[in-house]
């Protein structure tokens, strides 16, 4: 279990959502990566997902909703979610 999106600098640290990937469950299908509207996610050379640009995450939850293996988790730090705004689902 790896948490990758903890930012290092103190100021805006908790501003962007926390993305967690349970690598033991992830089957490296690439769906989350492909459909993230903000290109937050990427696959490392061992085909494991990681949050390449966590700061771009808008907490649309599309990666969570489409992960077939319940292996990714996005937690907003601020309460608002942008779910309703996302149009990629229509």
């Amino acid at each position: 279990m790896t948490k990758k999106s903890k930012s290092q600098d103190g100021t805006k640290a908790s501003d962007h959502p926390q993305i967690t990937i349970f690598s033991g469950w992830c089957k490296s299908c690439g769906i989350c990566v492909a459909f993230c509207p903000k290109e937050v996610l990427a696959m490392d050379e061992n085909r494991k997902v990681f949050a390449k640009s966590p700061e771009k995450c808008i907490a649309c939850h599309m990666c969570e909703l489409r992960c077939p293996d319940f292996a990714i988790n996005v937690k907003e730090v601020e309460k608002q979610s942008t779910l309703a705004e996302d149009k990629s689902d229509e």
Partner: protein
Amino acid sequence: MISNSELVNKYFRHNKKFPHIWCPGCGIGIILGNMLRAIDALDMNKNEIAFVSGIGCTGRAPVYVDFNTLHTTHGRALPFATGLKLARPELKVLVATGDGDATAIGGNHLIHACRRNIDITTIIFNNYIYGMTGGQYSPTTPHSDKASTCKLGNIERPFNISQLVEAAGATFVGRTTSYHTLQLQSIIKKAIMHKGFSVVEVITHCPTTYGRINKKGTAVDMLKWQKEVAVDKSRADKMDPKELEGKIITGILMEKQLPEFCEQYDTIIEKAQSMKNNQQGKSK
């Protein structure tokens, strides 16, 4: 909305081994997850949910979730569910069934459940193939597509499931894809709330069998295809048939109110009991 971690903690069986058995990228997990989100949104009591399935990759869904779960024989989820529902009408009964399970071996039970309008929500995971047995054509495999038992192309024409269940008497018919997860949640929610027999057809992908033999690419590619072919009913209603060729109309396709089976049976019980009381009154 509930997060994946909360979902897993709240609805998955802690004593079942994960990751689940489905192949990388398989759409079944996506549908299962969004079904759970719909259930969560409706704030249902886990003790009152019965989740029933037949045999197939799809049929493996119930074992993972912490409801009353019943994994029946191939094609027979609906008659098992019918007996269970009639025996205990207070249960919310959900059925997960593959295209083969629902429309090949189970086709008869499907149309009869529609006809009876019994209050069961059936989610058909339509991946156009028999996934579990390694990719033979199913009654929904498109004409000319390939499968392990029709390597030269399928000569049968597929069922239009939604049309079929409507003609058979279903009172709620919805269709969406495993790509359209929000729509999926919303349709399942409405289907569960609908009183009567509701069918939700979810177009999904089996990258391992159907995808591979038909060169449809990865799970990602197949999801992209779903995104492209889907046209929401509200939009489709305004399009002309030409434009709609090759498209799949999604949304709530039909919804109507008709007396529900278990409720009707209650009136029979009332009648029968009042007749019995009358007779005993007469003490003939």
